């Protein structure tokens, strides 16, 4: 049985070798840890999440229901299922469209200033890629960040936000082909 003194002498004489072995063990441990951590951390889907967890094109209906519960109402339109969740205003529910059991687009209704101002989004995402027009016309054009998967309908002068749409990142042309009611042209209403 080797005494502690003998072990100390051995370590001292083979200091370089022991150091290399310790370093190798540390690196191996780090590699294993990193590998495990990588496996455990889910890859963040592209685009902007709604309510931190819901990613259009990625979140399925089961995940949606487990996150937000059962919708207040559902409706089918043109083969698409729509789930409606409370926004705090009884007349303007949030609308979540589903396509093949997966969230395709979310239309979040904004009441008050809880979602900030248009300028907040411009600071966060840089200037918008495009400005488009929908049912709010020039009262609240849509500010489109295709790569971020977000469209913010807001007043062009004071930045008051009306709606925010979340979708899977796409280009403006593809987006407009999916939503023909939107246009790049400024409407001239009667």
């Amino acid at each position, binding site marked *: 049985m080797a005494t502690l003194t003998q072990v100390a002498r051995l370590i001292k004489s083979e200091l370089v070798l022991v150091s290399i072995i310790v370093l190798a063990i540390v690196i191996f441990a780090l590699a294993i840890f990193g590998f495990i951590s990588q496996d455990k951390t889910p890859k963040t889907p592209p685009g902007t999440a709604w309510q931190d967890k819901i990613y259009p094109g990625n979140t399925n209906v089961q995940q949606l229901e487990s996150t937000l519960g059962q919708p207040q109402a559902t409706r089918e339109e043109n083969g698409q299922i729509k789930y409606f969740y409370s926004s705090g205003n009884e007349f303007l529910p949030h609308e979540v469209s589903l396509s*093949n059991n997966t969230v395709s687009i979310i239309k979040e209704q904004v*009441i008050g200033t809880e979602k900030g101002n248009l300028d907040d989004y411009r600071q966060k995402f840089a200037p918008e890629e495009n400005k488009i027009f929908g049912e709010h016309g*020039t*009262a609240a054009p849509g500010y489109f960040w295709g790569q971020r998967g977000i469209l913010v309908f807001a007043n062009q002068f004071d930045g008051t936000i009306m709606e925010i749409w979340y979708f899977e990142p796409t280009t403006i042309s593809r987006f407009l082909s999916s939503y023909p009611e939107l246009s790049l042209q400024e409407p001239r209403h009667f």
Partner: protein
Amino acid sequence: MPPATIAKKRVGALGVLAELETIEPLLAKHREEFQPKLANSLAPQIEKLLPILGVKNTPDQTVGEIAAETARQVFEDATKIQTVDQIDTIVADSLAQTVITHPQIGAQVKADETKIFEKAFEQTAAVAAQNQADLEKAAVLANLAQIASLDANNQNGKDQIAKSTAYTVETQGPLTTPAAQEEMKTTLSKYLTTYKQELFRQLAVSEEAIPTLADLQKAKENAHELINDKIKDFPQKDATGKPITPQITHRVLTTNFAKIQNLIPPAPPPATTKLPVGSGIILSNPKRVNEAYLSLLAFDQEKLAGALKETSAQIEKYKGKKSLNFKERKAYYSAQKQYERYVSAQAFQVKKAKRAQAYRTLFAQAFGGRVELASQNAWLAEQQLIGQMPRVFAANERLAAGTAFGKLGFSLAGFSPGSLLSKIESQILSIPKLGMGMGVNVVGGPVKGLLNKVKNITGAIFGGTALYFLSLGAAAFQGFVAGAAIGGLGGAAAGFWLATATGPLFPITVIPLTLGGFFVGGFVGGLAGGLIALGLASGSATAVSMGVGAGAGGTIGAVVGFNLGVAAGAGIMTALIGICIGSLVCAPFAPFLIAISPAIVTIFGAVGAAVGAVIGTLIGTFAGYLIGNYLINPIVSAIKGAINALEGGIGAGGGILGSIGSFLTGLASTVWGGISSIGGGVLGALTGGVNLVVGGLAALPLPAALPVVLLTAGPIGGAVFLTSVIISGTAVTFATIAIDEPTTIVTPGENQFFTLTKTAQPGTMGNNDLPSEIKFTITLRAKDTNLTNIQITDDLKVQKQSGTFTVSADKDGRPISPPCPGAAPPSLSANETWVCEFSIIADKQPPERDFSDSLVANTVTVRTTPEGQSEITDSNSATVIIGTPPTLCAFLDIQETWSQTERNNINEVCKTLDRSPKVISLLRNAGTINLIKDGARSDGVCGAVNGARTITIYCDISSLPFAKYVIIHELGHVISNYNGPTYQAFRASGAFQVEKLMPTYPFDVSSDPEVGPNESFAEMVTEYVVSKDYNHLARSWSGYPGGPWSNPGPGWTTFQSDRPLHFNFARDQIYGGVSY
């Protein structure tokens, strides 16, 4: 005509085709032979009926006309007869409809349609019985002809299949893929084809062998079952192999279709739908049943708008004809009745939105929270009314609702008006159960007549209150049910006890005193329970305190009232006996008077107790409010503050306290739920379902019913009462059972958590008054929740023709944002109020501070986080007019191209809008607004806005009303372009969502995707000013009849009445209360 015989023979495939082709001729031959005979049988009965209805000396020719037309309609409606016992209803219905729509007779009959039907039923029952065989044959052939005409390959068949598929998908598998839906249609197509072959193979119809209705129904059932066994190819998986909506089996699919198309016999609906406990209290009244039905119809606004449009078009079509035959008159009449019902639905939704929402809350719970399913089923019932029910049902609001909510409603795979409403049907005694095998259910006899009256009063008292509490939330409703049950039982027991004390008068007093006790006790208990539950759910100690006060006040009031009543009674009886003894005439009766005096005194006591209970309840409620508001809230706030401090001090201990709180809250919630259920059960037990006490009593002989009720009531009521006292005490401190929240309409400065007001003194002043002081007062009052992280900002702008400047300091040089620096609270306890006052000096110091001819607009904004809630922001404004503020025309850049008349009209528009400083203030935010004239456009558009504030007019505006209409509409767009919060508030007000696009807007919303809330906003802005003066064109898309919006046609009144949400928003948020 030989009696119908049951077919025995069987035929092959070729025989089936032959059968199909022979049904129509058989029916036609039978009509030709039997219809005149039926008319002859009816004529004598019609002669008897008309005088009963108040029509005398009717010529024979007219009687003959009515008889012939009645017989014709019997054949037309023969497909509605599914069983023999429905025959008499259809005959009576045909006669009633003919009388009502007869050009001369109809006008003379004053009775309502239901009454006419009842009288007709009495006269035609014998005719129907005498001719039953021939009428049954007509029904069988008509049903077979209808089935034979249903072809999967023609457009009608395809439409019916698509409709049924859509219904099944929507109700039972909303995630079904389009491909799978196509497969479902193919399945139904195969089903229909095979079903028809099988049905006719089984029946083997021939002239000699017409089946009976019973045989027909049996064959339908057999064919349906056989086909269901045969069709096995309905896909259970989609193209990727994933299972799809496993609940849609081919049996569910085909059964839904078969029920809609009458391919299987009507069956009692499955009792799978459960309405919330206590619903029957609300639905015990026919008026509310009808309101409930209308609320469900109105939920689907798109469908309602379509139905309005369709029936309106039908009415117009018939109006446009020079003369109408009988068939057309009946169709016209039906369309009018339908139209009236849809208008009522629309009006109810608009005028009583909260009440409509309360009804839908009730039904949503029966459909797993999916209101749209309840609405969809109401619309299905509506379809059935038109196509499969006697016409008197479709034309009568109460019967229509009764059909939808009764067992006549057909069921579809568990979710249906039938299944939903069959449960209700048994609870609605007041809806006449007429015909269709149901028989007239008239409660007879003097005692039952009295009970019916009592039942109606019960429904009126408790139903209305229950509905009110339901509109405050499910918790308040449950509390009301529990409280009413407990109080009602206690009151009934007390009343019965008092009745026993009346001794010889017991047989006379037992019913009024017991029922009186039930009403009074139910009122006190319901009010107390509803308020306590509302308080628990919303965290309002004041509401809880009011509830406790109501209960305590009611009880104390009853005791005091009883004693006062007894004292008064004793005094009166003593005096009467004294007078009687002293009277020669009366003296012999004195012993009798003495004998009954204890009973009389007791009755006085009972009356005193009832009056005392009601008065005590009201006093107790008010006292509860004072105690809750001024005593409990400060104490609770102090306790919470202490707990918060303790949690902060002991770290982990906060978690423990939180856990204890959560546990107690959960416990309270669970036990409260139990109380509500028991309370509902008690009411149910008392009332025979939910028909309240009368239904239960009516089911038993009266003397037997009372002991049963009271013996059951005592122990349960006592136990529940004790439990509720314990739980209320616990819950007042700890529980915040957030079940739901009352609905609110957004108004500036008013929200669920606080009220924010801003005032200015004085509101106006002249230029000569300058310099002068203006005092602004801000009041922030927390509601029932503590407010934290309060941030207050203030913005004070002075708008002049030359521009706008901002005032940032008060007269003492202190900043006005945040206002009252150093005094603004970081938090505010529930029901606490913070007031801030500051003043500025309105100077006349050009150029920096010249207030002359200006509009001073001061807006305060509060951002806060209510305890346990997310952050909320709200604001409110006050304005001061000094001298003559800038007019609209001052910042309108009017080009030179306008004619003098047009220019004058533009000046008039300015003058009109100048009356409202608020609208000028909103427009002022746009800076200079350009007003350009351009050549006429080919598309008829008269005005447009581009570049956000450049208005181009393309039409001649020499007419002043038209100039106002067009220019103010375009200015409406400018307002929304430059006032984001105003446009956002418009969206949040629900005006567009509830009332849709303003009906005077020229274009159909569906034809232009860009038309939406923005256009409704602009149209609202102009209609507020011009609606009564401008001669609008008719708008075909909305049905607006044209002309000024002042009773322009049937179904229309004024802008304010027809579109109140739009009107109110314009009045308050655009024009600042100024009227035009």
